[in-house]
């Protein structure tokens, strides 16, 4: 018998245009709690989806369960091997009862007309809940439960399956501190029963509290696996961020120009709280932090599509009221969303039509028809200045590479002549060469006088482009620094609440928040 419940080797995964995983491995021993750690986009989720049978790895991948060769082609294969996965967004059926949610999936693959055995469902679900010491009526519909209870239902489902390996993807991200403690006890209990657990989390303190071993991923590559007593938080942060691809850090002087944009006391319950900052002329402000820290929600509130509870804005010293994206565009604020394909472009339309979209009502000729000549000229000007390749104005946007699509999206907003450009994860899913181009472009726009706010999870990018950096955590600004004082480790510490002292204050803060709401 092997010591390992699971061994995954040579795991690569190529998505169109992006190599999400490059020769990664993961080995989990029986009964251990194994932390899988890495920055946003390091490839943790992709790896888990391959283990779950939702994604297929590139050829050459090897799986071993309990030392034996195995294949996972679809979700049921993983289930039958005793693997249960608890996704961050959970896999429950809100309209079904607790009992059914626990039982569901056990009959998958059986005859469609098979009669459901309600007695059996009741027995199995009650047993699983009893083992977990969860006191919930099995006839309750899941939609009536709290998130913490729902999570326990998922764990009960895994136990009802007699799973040998349970993957928990950021299980504590939406729990209050008392619920988190309860979950820790459940994890301890499961591992005492010999069940292995892969625990994914950004909270270093909880990983050190729970885990026996760590596997670190970075940029889709395997960094290493470490026993808990051979590693500390500082080293771990270093392994997570120390990457091979680095950009040159922005060397510009601190900008002392006029304040062109000011955000004051922005709050939205559950999203972010008390956010205030200024943007100076010629400056790129980088906003970073973990996914879920409230960055995108903040940007969308500034842009008027996520209604804020309170707060005010000033552009060039004048108070402005933005209540919708239409207001924002009128006042000169542009927002380039992260999902550029679905939210930023009309993929089937030509480059010209995409670029002219925000200003189409201003391109009228004297008969109030759109003047195609002006439109083409304007688009060509942006294609040239942004260096969109291939420079074929009639080409549908869908035929362009990710980097060039992003240029078109930027061109589209530039045609509206914004004063402030907010850009969310500008180089997500774009290859390295094109990333540098986008970085240069953002710097150039700032130098030309547009205020640029860049949201990014990629620390080298934040350092390469920004003049000043805001770090968000749990909906608040946890750190602000000029780029010449910033390092990746420093930012990561602010984002994670890294060292021990700071973490104490986070726990208190979090308790305060949960009391407030």
């Amino acid at each position: 018998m092997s010591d390992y419940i699971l061994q995954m080797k040579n795991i690569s995964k190529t998505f169109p245009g992006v190599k999400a995983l490059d020769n990664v491995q993961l080995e989990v021993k029986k009964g251990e709690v194994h932390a899988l750690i890495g920055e946003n986009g390091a490839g943790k989720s992709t790896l888990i989806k391959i283990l779950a049978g939702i994604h297929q790895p590139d050829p050459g991948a090897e799986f071993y369960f309990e030392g034996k060769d195995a294949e996972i082609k679809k979700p049921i294969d993983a289930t039958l091997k005793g693997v249960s996965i608890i996704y961050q967004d959970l896999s429950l059926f809100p309209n079904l009862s607790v009992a059914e949610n626990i039982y569901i999936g056990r009959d998958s693959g059986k005859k469609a007309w098979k009669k459901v055995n309600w007695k059996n469902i009741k027995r199995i679900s009650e047993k699983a809940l009893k083992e977990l010491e969860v006191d919930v009526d099995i006839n309750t519909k899941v939609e009536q439960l709290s998130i913490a209870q729902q999570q326990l239902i998922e764990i009960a489902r895994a136990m009802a399956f007699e799973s040998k390996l349970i993957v928990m993807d950021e299980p504590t991200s939406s729990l209050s501190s008392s619920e988190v403690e309860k979950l820790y006890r459940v994890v301890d209990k499961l591992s005492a029963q010999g069940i292995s657990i892969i625990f994914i989390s950004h909270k270093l303190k909880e990983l050190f509290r729970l885990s026996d071993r760590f596997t670190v991923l970075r940029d889709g590559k395997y960094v290493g696996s470490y026993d808990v007593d051979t590693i500390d938080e500082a080293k771990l942060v270093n392994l997570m961020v120390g990457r091979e691809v680095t950009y040159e850090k922005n060397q510009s002087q601190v900008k002392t120009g006029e304040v062109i944009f000011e955000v004051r006391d922005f709050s939205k319950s559950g999203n972010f709280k008390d956010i205030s900052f200024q943007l100076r002329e010629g400056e790129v402000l980088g906003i970073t932090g973990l996914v879920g820290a409230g960055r995108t929600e903040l940007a969308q509130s500034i842009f008027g599509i996520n209604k804020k509870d309170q707060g005010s804005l000033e552009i060039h010293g004048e108070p402005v009221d933005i209540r919708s994206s239409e207001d924002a565009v009128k006042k000169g604020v542009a927002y380039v969303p992260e999902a550029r394909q679905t939210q930023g472009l009309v993929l089937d339309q030509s480059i010209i039509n995409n670029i002219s979209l925000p200003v189409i009502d201003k391109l009228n000729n004297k008969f109030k028809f759109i003047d195609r000549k002006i439109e083409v000229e304007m688009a060509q000007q942006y294609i040239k200045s942004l260096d969109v390749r291939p420079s074929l104005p009639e080409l549908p946007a869908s035929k362009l590479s990710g980097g060039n699509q992003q240029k078109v999206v930027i061109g589209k907003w530039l045609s509206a002549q914004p004063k402030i450009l907010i850009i969310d994860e500008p180089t997500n899913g774009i290859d390295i060469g094109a990333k540098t181009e986008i970085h240069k472009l953002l710097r150039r726009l700032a130098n030309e006088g547009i205020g640029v706010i860049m949201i990014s999870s990629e620390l080298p990018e934040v350092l390469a482009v920004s003049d000043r950096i805001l770090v968000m955590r749990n909906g608040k600004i946890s750190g602000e620094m000029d780029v010449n004082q910033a390092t990746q480790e420093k930012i990561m510490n602010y984002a994670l609440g890294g060292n021990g002292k700071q973490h104490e204050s986070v726990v208190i803060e979090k308790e305060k928040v949960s009391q407030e709401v």
Partner: protein
Amino acid sequence: MKSLFKQKEFSILAIVLLISSILTFVSPVFLTVGNLLDLIEGNVVIGILAIGMTLIIITSDIDVSVAAVTTAVAVSISYLFGFLPDSWISVLLLFLFAPVIGLVMGLFNGLLVSKIEIPAIVVTLGTLNIIAGLVLYITNGNYVNSTSFPQSFLSFSNIEILGIPILIYLLAIVAVGTWFILKHTLIGRSVLAIGGNTQSSVRVGINYQRVKLFVFAYMGFLAGIAAIAQTAYTKAVDPNGMIGLELTVIAAVVLGGANIHGGRGSIHGTLLGVLLLAIMQNGMILARIDTYWQNVVTGAIIVIAVSYDQISYKRSQDKLANIEVEA
């Protein structure tokens, strides 16, 4: 008991009772066994179709081709009458052939929706037009009346057991059978599961394509049975007689508490929805309200019911979202 009152079906029942008591005062004819049996028998076809539609709406899809499919099967039945001998065996054979013809058309819809993943509204709009066009081409729009029907079929349609017409028993069998499928079989539970959360169902290994195929095929199967009921009830086959009926069917399901976003719906709710529409129609006739106004009132009630549904859905979503970020 408390949960009983909370159920959506309960509020529909309350409305049904309320309208019934008003109608009892307005017209002494309303609350008579004869009127009620007529009312139910006249809605058997809508009831059978609505039961099939319930499963489709639970999976968050829709089928607008049901009336066309039912008409096509009814026309096929009138041709079958020419080949089958006039005997009881033929009536039994009809119950074999008609559902199978419907099933084939339902499978066609289902394959396009589940395998090629075309939105159901587009697929069924297409098949609605194809089938309706073919029916008119084949029949020239001609009405077939009972003189060409075999005597055995006519006596079948006149059967009454304990004073209740045979078609009402047919509806009851379909209702109980479908309830059993939905509540007690794996495929039935999968219908509810994929309606509740498609992504979760993929993660727990439910083959949602197969489930979608099933609901459309089953809809076709029931359309075949509905075609027999329609032929027996009207004692005629009218190629133009059911145009637009799919809207009434969908309206009944939605009134019966099924959620247009999927995941929720029940057979007893749908039957109450059919009943509600039926007594409103009946009541307005008894109260001598102009036919045009009947359509306006029915339409308004549907819009109000769906708006109510959508608003409460949005509220519950907002509440859920809040819980997630607050914690």
